[in-house]
């Protein structure tokens, strides 16, 4: 009895308290943003700071949604992100199947090629992409942003899908083919449905990265097509920063990606760490 209580106290002091400290650091700035967004304007700029507002208001959110094309920007982000997911997934599925199921000359080279692409500095691509898009008259279009975001979504999707397809036994393809399916039929009817959770997780992760992306969105577009991240950045006024409006924008703009991330984290992380841990 005594031992149990002491060890529980011990556990609390060593493990749970340190965990709480790390989580406080991890969530603190985020919670502070959310709290700021629901504070009345006059409480924001008062010292000493009230950590817990005695009054709560939605005025910043009302102003945000009535002004500044905020919802329109969210819609445009949605178009870009969905477009990027479609391009990334559709191109990578057959490639991943090929990497997973066949052994052919050049396979290793091509797989490593996709790995290298993922590590190209953004800055090395964003400079020439701007020049190319400008020449083609594509600046400030959905197309430009979807192409730019595909530069990271395609290699990522190819690697993730390859590792998901690897988990499906080859005997299933063979069984489907003895039953009269073609190779592609086996892929489409047997393998893909089985790794659907992996396809969905990959798609959602691409969606999140595209939704969150800022540099390409700011450089290759920003006027006609203004994604949410660029929209939030433009909320910064010329003379003073309206922190209430800005934190409301940040909270709302980050919400879709945050929720999706929490929903898929388990699945996604399994896929991501699989390769690293096996070593």
């Amino acid at each position, binding site marked *: 009895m005594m031992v149990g209580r002491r060890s529980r106290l011990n556990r609390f002091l060593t493990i749970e308290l340190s965990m709480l400290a790390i989580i406080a650091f991890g969530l603190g700035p985020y919670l502070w943003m959310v709290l700021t967004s629901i504070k009345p304007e006059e409480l924001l700029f008062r010292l000493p700071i009230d950590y817990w507002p005695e009054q709560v208001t939605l005025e910043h959110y009302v102003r945000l949604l009535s002004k500044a094309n905020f919802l329109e920007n969210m819609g445009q982000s949605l178009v870009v992100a969905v477009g990027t997911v479609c391009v990334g997934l559709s191109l990578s599925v057959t490639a991943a199947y*090929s990497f997973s199921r066949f052994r052919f*000359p050049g396979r290793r080279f091509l797989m490593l090629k996709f790995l290298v692409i993922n590590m190209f500095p953004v800055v090395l691509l964003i400079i020439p992409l701007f020049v190319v898009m400008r020449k083609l008259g594509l600046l400030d279009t959905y197309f430009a942003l979807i192409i730019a975001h595909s530069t990271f979504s395609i290699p990522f999707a190819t690697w993730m899908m390859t590792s998901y397809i690897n988990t499906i036994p080859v005997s299933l393809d063979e069984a489907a083919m003895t039953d009269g399916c073609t190779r592609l039929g086996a892929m489409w009817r047997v393998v893909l449905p089985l790794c659907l959770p992996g396809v969905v997780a990959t798609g959602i992760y691409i969606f999140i990265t595209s939704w969150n992306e800022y540099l390409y969105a700011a450089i290759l577009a920003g006027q006609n097509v203004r994604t949410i991240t*660029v929209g939030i950045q433009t909320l910064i006024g010329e003379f003073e920063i309206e922190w209430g409006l800005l934190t409301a924008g940040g909270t709302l703009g980050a919400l879709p990606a945050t929720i999706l991330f929490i929903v898929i984290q388990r699945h996604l*992380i399994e896929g991501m760490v699989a390769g690293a841990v096996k070593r």
Partner: protein
Amino acid sequence: MGMTPRRYRRRLPVLPYVLLSPVVLVTLVIIFYPMLQAIWMSVHDYIIWKPQDIRFNAFAHFVTAFSDEVFWISLWHTAIWISLTVSLQLALGFAAAILLNQDFPWRALARGLIIIPWALPSVVIGLMWSWVYDPNYGVLNDFMLRFGLLTQSMPWLANPDTALYAIILTLTWQGFPFFAVMILAGLQAIPSSYYEAAELDGASRRQQFWHITLPSLKGVLVTAVLLRIIWVANSIDVIYVMTSGGPGYATHTLPLYAFLRTYTAMDFGYGSALAVLFTLMLLGVVVLYLRRAGRDVT
């Protein structure tokens, strides 16, 4: 009957290449062609609104870079930026992973909460932390004043001595969940029989950590660190949002300098040359990573 499959196998298979061709073609067009364009621009005078003045200048930009003071400042900052950020992320992520691997009632909740920084857009992260660091109404100053750690408000991002470190803290915050998740997965993959055997042999907790935990995690740690070095080196969006490289050149890293040089001066030639130089420097780390990852590709 017995001959057919063997003969089929000996022929060069066509289908895998057919399945790969769309993605290979697309990446050639949207990634490799632009990259060649960047290399081409790096050896030309290329100011975008002076198309008549585009001309080959051999390696003039690279020579300029080596005598460019800002290049060296940025390079130095890049070194500080990468080494400090990655080691802080690793340390915090390691601690978090070890705690998450213990047994306590709200472990699943803790694991869910800890990855939130990972999910947020860099613009939001930049703004959120700028608000934390605000010289007048920032929560950090308020905290430190209350606890007597400061006697006077500090403009963290406007002070050239603190700006880089303030952003490093922000990026540590953004990146430590990645390490926590990777290391946690590594910890869970260690068979518990190892520890049981060590226990029987009378090994202390500390000995178990040094002789079982660390060696078993080596692979995960090296992979994660290499990946993060590349990622942290490349990430310029948070710096761009928070300080745009300022005050002065206090938060310039090399890729950010290449970016700013390109778009503020519209000097695509010199900007590309800086980007190419940076890529060459990063290549060493990329090759190390590929060597490891390459062993997985069988």
